[in-house]
């Protein structure tokens, strides 16, 4: 039986389409019903398995500066060609092109639910933004070894097309976690669990539905001055807020953090505070808020001269069921404010 050739849609920029370099980066979207530039190499490597039936081309500036408008337009053009597979780039270490490759691959995967792959150099800014939303194969930083890079992309793309189990990025060659795994939610979780367990028991291949993310390791920073000269701030994810919850902080899945003054306070009075956090029994904190945000102790240490100064504001949010993305954002924003406050050290209390 002759297998039907896969219909492949390919996305490239103005440079690889030989429209022009930087001077042509503002050029809008165009479509050609054939393989163009690196697409020809793609065709060779796909061989009997598939063929580029459409190439979508866009200028780097045009897409990178209008992602929200242009990416959906690309998705429509990809969809029109009724593809079985979508490949973007590869974008190597090109910033705007990398961004575009990541964005269109993520959007096509999410909306059209077809195998979608791109390739970027690990330090391309597109990797940081899209490696959790798209399969991005880690490749070289320039087009010098394009054949090798595209063949890596094709090998992985065919695995996706053939619904083979996909291992971790370190084995498969993609960066980060890759996108959320497609799951058939019309089959109950219990049934899928038993099926997966039997596959695992019998040593048959199976796909975990939640690949473990690879978190970056953050080394603790060193205090650069004596503690007795350091300004210390209190930060907590235990949800302490002033009475009345003036900023309407939610007790779960936090969307923001609060910053509140403790200027002139020797300790936190129970009648002035409440807790917005649904993940622990906060009776003890309601009784004595200092047990979560230890202003009383720090003020004493300040007087004793063990620390230089207690910062005038404390930072607070509820950590419970808050997404990694928001946690990261809060962390960065709190760190910026701490720097503004010229804080040297932080005590982070958690619950």
């Amino acid at each position, binding site marked *: 039986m002759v297998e039907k050739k896969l219909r492949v849609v390919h996305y490239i920029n103005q440079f690889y389409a030989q429209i022009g370099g930087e001077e042509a980066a503002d050029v809008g979207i165009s479509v050609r019903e054939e393989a163009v530039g690196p697409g020809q190499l793609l065709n060779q490597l796909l061989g009997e398995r598939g063929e580029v039936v459409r190439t979508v081309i866009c200028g780097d500036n045009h897409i990178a500066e209008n992602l929200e408008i242009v990416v959906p337009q690309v998705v429509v053009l990809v969809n029109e060609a009724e593809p079985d597979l979508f490949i973007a780039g590869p974008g190597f270490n090109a910033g705007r092109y990398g961004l575009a490759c990541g964005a269109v691959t993520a959007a096509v995967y999410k909306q059209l639910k077809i195998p979608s792959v791109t390739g970027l150099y690990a330090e391309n800014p597109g990797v940081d933004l899209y490696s*959790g*939303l798209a399969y991005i194969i880690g490749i070289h930083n320039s087009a010098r070894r394009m054949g090798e890079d595209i063949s890596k992309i094709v090998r992985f793309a065919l695995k996706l097309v053939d619904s083979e189990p996909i291992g971790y990025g370190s084995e498969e060659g993609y960066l980060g*976690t*890759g*996108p*959320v*795994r497609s*799951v058939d*939610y*019309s*089959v*109950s*979780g*219990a*049934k*899928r*669990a*038993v099926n*997966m*367990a*039997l596959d*695992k*028991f019998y040593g048959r291949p*199976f796909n*975990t*539905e*939640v*690949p*473990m*993310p690879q*978190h970056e390791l953050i080394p603790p920073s060193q205090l650069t001055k004596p503690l007795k000269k350091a300004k210390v701030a209190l930060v907590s994810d235990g949800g302490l807020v002033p009475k009345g*919850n003036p900023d*309407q*902080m*939610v*007790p*779960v*899945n936090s969307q923001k953090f609060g910053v509140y003054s403790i200027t002139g306070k020797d300790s936190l009075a129970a009648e002035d505070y409440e807790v*917005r*956090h*649904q*993940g*622990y*029994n*906060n009776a003890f904190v309601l009784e004595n808020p200092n047990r979560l945000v230890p202003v009383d102790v720090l003020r004493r240490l300040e007087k004793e001269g063990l620390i230089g100064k207690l910062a005038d504001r404390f930072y607070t949010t509820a950590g*419970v*069921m808050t*997404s*990694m*993305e928001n946690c990261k954002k809060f962390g960065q924003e709190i760190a910026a404010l701490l720097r503004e406050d010229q804080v040297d050290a932080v005590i982070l209390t958690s619950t």
Partner: protein
Amino acid sequence: MGKRLQIDFVEIKSVAFAEKSYLENGALYIDKQELLDKMQSDMFSSLQIELVAPGEDVRLLGVHDITQPRVKADEPEASFPGIWGNVKPAGEGRTVALRGVVVTELYPLKANLKYILDMSGPAAEVSHFSRHYHVVINASPVAGIDDVAYCKALKQAALTACVCLARLAIETVPSESKIYELTPVPPAADGSRLPRVAYITNHLAAFDTMQFFYYGISGQGILPLLVHPNDLLDGAFIYRYFYFTYYIQNDTVIYELYSRHGLDLDFAGVVLNNGQTVTKNKDVCTMVAVDLAKNHLQADIVITNKCGMHHLQLEQAMICEKCAELGIAAVAIMPTVSSEKPGDLLAVVNPHLDAVVHSAYVETITFPRVARLIGDSEIPSLLGVDLQGPFTKSTNLLLAGNLSELGDFYPTTDTELIRKEG
């Protein structure tokens, strides 16, 4: 011989108040005053029952527990043994369950987490509980009583309602009758055996108003227990605030394992583990749980899930790690940890969590304006929001019946009930 449980499911097609309580051709009639009298407690300053139908333009606020009405046909007084009524082993004999109607408790006291439920519109579309009739209990506490006393009274009232309603169906011909029995699985002709599967279910009992009970005994501080799956299905286990008892009465993992028992697996039994709040205790309890699975249930495979927030993922990770050491193939069921990006709400990253089922994802939806609200609670995750709507919010930890932590998800839960639009 092991326990043999027969559950007769009787389908309820409509619910209405009437002069007397009876069931006829799937229509359930309730004498409101009679039921109120049975549920009354000194702990309530007021007690109301409201009927809510699928498709109604209404939003329930502060949904506290949802229970399927059930009764032991031969001894109604032991329908929730040790919790409500007599002490007697659950999980055997005949139980009658109403399908399509539930008893729903609203919670007026302060709580950090409260659910809502829409009976029509876009939020109802993504909730399986919107397909049920609800007998809603709205009881106010007497001023000055403590939360635990009120919680207890509320639970007694709800279970009373469950038993009273299900009693009406004892003589009714069921629409479905199921037998649950762990019959021995003999080896195949060639001597080979099916893999033995143990189910380790982790539940949190954290404090007095947020815990579970097993035969009326608090789950706080208990060590892992070897339990019969029928006991969990049949009223020995209930929640007191925190989750919906319905999900235990209809535990989808137990149902699935039973449905395949003797076909492609041998359902070995269940270990009930209390989720701990201290890491060392998590370590100890998961060690004991896996030991029970390995050395008492002779498990080749472990399926593990949890109910009690994301820190119980640590129990799941420890269980998978310990299973790996013992050569047991383990799978963890985890909802809502991979919605936008993989692992975006994972509290634990562990390489032994290498076989994870993502049972449900989170959606953000627009809850429309509704004609009527029931329950006047402050909903902590809806501060500053007009509860009548419209508002746009994530369904996670807000919409009852979208998913359960244990693994249910609205596309596959209660699929035999058809959704109605008003």
